[in-house]
């Protein structure tokens, strides 16, 4: 494959390595699918500030006569009729005109029979929080979920890598103490620590920004030890390599060695782990919300995890126990409320996973033959 380099260009080994990695990545079809989906998510994410926040006047659903929709048990009265026709029942729930329907109406079962359903979402207390459109919530949720995940992962990785490098390179008592600290944090089941942290510090805070900051801080606290461990392991291996010895013998200072030799060679697993974690964190947030802990100040918050968890809780579990015990057949389970956010979470996490796995295999020297 010795392609003739264009004249006058110096061969760049780093570029070649990147090209080679890309070749191996490309051969992995699952990884490419994951990459494609993530690219799609990124495109949606880029336009996030432009999406209308769910709950604005455009998406606030009112019934056809301008009143708030009537509840049918825990569900709003759903009616399906064409705009311009008379509604079959007063105050029933209908998609407002002019709403951009990129996806189009979904088809489902309702008391009125099979027909187009709105993309609506339940709230636990419709008197105080308006309904909002699941689809709009998903779009806006891209913003929240991805930003929070990336923020947590980036901060955690930064702290973890720093501490890991210091610990691995300098060794001795510094290493011991940092390792003990990571031991402690890794022994406490992470989710518990986050929950407790939030329970103590976050429960009374009402401001959205501050609350999110506290959530991020809680996650960062439990997340950095993993990176420290990974990096330390790599640094321990890299530090013993001959080229480090050679660099030191030729007089390079510790800082230079760290910068040019050790860190670039130790960070590959960190990239893999970072991509994995970006996919996992929305799932954890969903889990915390599900337990009952209010991560965000309102319930109708457009974030994937919140939407999934609260919908599952309210529409699946509770309704199961309380409302549909005897008359299962006539329950409407608004499956779209938890399915789409849940599926988005799933899709995001799994495509990130494919990508990270592909990255890992592409970096693996044994497989690059």
């Amino acid at each position, binding site marked *: *494959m*010795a392609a003739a380099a264009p004249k006058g260009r110096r061969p760049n080994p780093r570029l070649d390595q990147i090209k*080679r990695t890309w*070749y*191996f990545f490309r051969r992995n079809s699952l990884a490419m699918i994951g990459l494609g989906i993530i690219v799609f998510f990124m495109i949606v994410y880029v336009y996030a500030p432009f999406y209308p926040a769910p709950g604005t006047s455009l998406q606030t659903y009112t019934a056809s006569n301008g009143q708030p929709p009537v509840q049918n048990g825990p569900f709003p009265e759903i009616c399906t009729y064409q705009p311009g026709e008379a509604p079959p029942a007063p105050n029933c729930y209908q998609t407002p005109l002019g709403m951009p329907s990129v996806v189009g109406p979904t088809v489902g079962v309702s008391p009125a029979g099979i027909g187009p359903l709105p993309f609506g979402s339940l709230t636990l207390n419709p008197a105080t929080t308006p309904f909002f459109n699941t689809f709009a919530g998903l779009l806006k949720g891209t913003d929240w979920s991805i930003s929070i995940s990336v923020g947590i992962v980036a901060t955690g990785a930064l702290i973890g890598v720093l501490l890991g490098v210091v610990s691995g390179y300098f060794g001795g008592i510094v290493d011991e103490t940092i390792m003990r600290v990571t031991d402690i944090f890794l022994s406490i089941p992470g989710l518990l620590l986050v929950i407790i942290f939030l329970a103590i510090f976050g429960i009374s805070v009402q401001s959205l920004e501050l609350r999110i900051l506290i959530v991020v801080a809680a996650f960062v606290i439990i997340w950095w030890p993993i990176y420290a461990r990974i990096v330390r392991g790599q640094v321990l291996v890299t530090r013993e390599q001959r080229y480090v010895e050679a660099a030191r013998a030729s007089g390079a200072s510790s800082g230079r060695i760290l910068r040019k030799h050790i860190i670039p060679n130790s960070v590959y697993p960190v990239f893999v782990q970072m991509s994995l974690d970006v996919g996992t964190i929305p799932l954890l947030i969903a889990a915390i919300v599900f337990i009952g802990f209010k991560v965000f100040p309102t319930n109708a918050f457009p974030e994937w995890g919140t939407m999934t968890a609260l919908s599952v809780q309210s529409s699946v579990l509770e309704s199961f126990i309380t409302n549909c015990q005897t008359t299962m057949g006539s329950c409407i389970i608004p499956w779209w409320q938890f399915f789409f956010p849940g599926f988005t979470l799933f899709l995001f996490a799994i495509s990130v996973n494919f990508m990270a796995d592909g990255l890992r295999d592409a970096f693996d020297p044994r497989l*690059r*033959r």
Partner: protein
Amino acid sequence: MAVAATPTTPLPETGSPLPRQIVRPAGASSGQPKGDVVLDIRNLKTYFYTYDGVVRALDGISFKVRKGETLGIAGETGCGKSVTVFSVMRLIPDPPGRIVSGKILFRGANLLWGIDREAKVKPIKNTGRVKVTRRFRRIKAANERMSAIRGRGISMIFQEPSQAMNPIFPVYDQIGEVLLLHRGPELIDGLLGATPEDPGVEPAIEALASASARNAPQSEIRELAKALADALHLPSFSIRAFHLSRPTSASRNQDVRKALHKEVRGLHLSAVEKGYLRNRKALILLENDLRATYFQEMQEGELDRRGERATRNRMRLRRYSHLYFRFPGVTRRLERPLRDETLWRSVEILEGVRIANPVQIAKSYPFELSGGMLQRVMIAMALAPEPVILMADEPTTALDVTVQAQILGLMRDLKERVGTSIVLITHDLAVLAEVADRVCIMYAGEIVENAPIVRLFESPLHPYTQGLLASIPRFDRPDKRLESIPGSVPNLITPPTGCKFHPRCPFAMPICKESRPPMTDEGDEHSVACFLYHGAPMVE
């Protein structure tokens, strides 16, 4: 595989005893080769399919190995020496490597039978690359066929002894594995001896114990141990008894009588267990017969598809029939005596490779032993099943010079005693001078010269060989410049056209660039692949 009924040979005064299984009957070949050809390699090609292209590691090599002969394969790093022996053993990792074509005739049977049907190679249009589609089921079947031959027909020792053994099992376990696989009936024989209640056993134990207690000379203890073994009708027991009662074997010294009693009692098996063991032995013999038949069929021509299926079915039968023989609850009880038996057999074998304290070594783990010791253990493991050919892949490269000398001496010794053919890979010509009868010089995946050792050193024909010999520093000519061969080893993905050595050859001619020189016979069993010589081409 006759069950040994002969007693142990008399143990010499000094030096180690010759374990029974390594001694061959008198008249075995030793040092005088020119027996039959046991290994015949014809036009072997092994390629590696990588991201950067197809690496032609072996580009059509041919040579023969005779019975009792030591063949050396020499060359620089990267010329394909190791790939050769791995190809013969079919240990090439299948992605990315493949044996592409050729014949490997081991005692007449083609080990590479069916190789062309194991994978399809198609070039991809518009790129230099190829796509290889492998048929894994066929490859697996081929592997299974080879595992019948590996170990007992052809065995191998490797370059880094410290990495070559499984770190979690002790040494006797690993040697024992080889014994159980290939020498099972003898192992079981060691257990099916007399019961300890037979007359003559007690007094023998007494005599041995008292001899040990009064620190009698080693020869006497050996005699008494042999007597005890005779009383038990177990020739192999003598070594066990000897080690137990040797004054220098540490803690046993106190209670030799008790220890002997315990050992002897451990041999006592119930009738049921004996029946099971006899069935195991019959099964192993049956399996050996099946393999021999398979060899036969291979030898009589290529196996056809029916034959292959029949062999597969037979192997499947073998795999399941041991369940038929299994007595419930007996297997676990048997593991103990068989395990002890493998321990003592391993001790015997380790003595055969001149290890001083075999009991301690046998019980230790590989990471506790030094490189030289491990290499001896590897040699012991490789020779335990009495293979026809021993492949040694740079066995001494990782060891110091003194240990190297010991290992080479050992190999030479064993060669004379056992009569195994040895294929020795090395880059050090001095090593070859010590042990080899005949040498092949390899360069860039081809054999360039093949000659008896003395002729090679006296009159090397190929320019590469001449360059190699000239580059060895010579003590007796201190004024001469240190020569080297200009240039460097060629890229095996894009090798030079024609003769691969021509860019570096001082005698290159135009024809060397165009076509590959055939191996020509220059007389005195000396063949060379070079256009400078005009002997008769060797018949492939």
